[in-house]
């Protein structure tokens, strides 16, 4: 079974530029999550999708971050414009269903550096 795929793995941009990350979840997984993991901290949920609908985006900085999940499969996370404090690893995860018991499967992450 293929895992969660993310691209790119690394991205370096200057502040005020735009960047987009892509995630392909495990086939059949209805729930998709985007996390931000700042160095030395645990992951923080940015947004959760159930199929192509948003379940939770309470911690997404909506003035600069946006995310979509077209057709309930792949998802993109965009930052526009980027700030220095956005430097972090962005993790995508998926699970079979939005149940608290279900395991989340994580992708390898995208390491973003904002200069």
């Amino acid at each position, binding site marked *: 079974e293929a895992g969660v795929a993310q691209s790119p793995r690394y991205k370096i941009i200057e502040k005020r530029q735009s960047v987009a990350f892509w995630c392909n979840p495990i086939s059949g997984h209805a729930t998709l999550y985007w996390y931000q993991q700042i160095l030395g901290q*645990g992951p923080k949920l940015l947004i959760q999708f159930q199929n192509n609908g948003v379940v*939770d985006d309470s911690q997404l900085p909506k003035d600069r971050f946006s995310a979509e999940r077209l057709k309930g499969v792949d998802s993109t996370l965009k930052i526009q414009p980027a700030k220095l404090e956005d430097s972090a690893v962005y993790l995508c995860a998926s699970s079979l269903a*939005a149940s*608290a018991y279900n395991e989340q499967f*994580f992708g390898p*992450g995208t390491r973003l550096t904002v200069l």
Partner: protein
Amino acid sequence: AQTVTQSQPEMSVQEAETVTLSCTYDTSESDYYLFWYKQPPSRQMILVIRQEAYKQQNATENRFSVNFQKAAKSFSLKISDSQLGDAAMYFCAYRYSGTYKYIFGTGTRLKVLA
């Protein structure tokens, strides 16, 4: 608000020895789940073990076991017969049954010494 605290930023253990990683959490809920995730240097997080709060029996998965103390809100991870491949960041996570959001601790970096 629910919080998860890992008070040990870094731990070391000799190969083949046993180590315990600590985790405490705060919640007013009674129905929740607790998890330990491992994040090796390659960054892909994988589930190590999970515990349902309604179960009194501590979960075990091969060399990994937990000590779940619900009243004390403590959820420690014990790794027996430590191996070099166990070296990683370990995150404790809480998940309330009413939502599906994980709340992660800040992590403990485990070093395994040969």
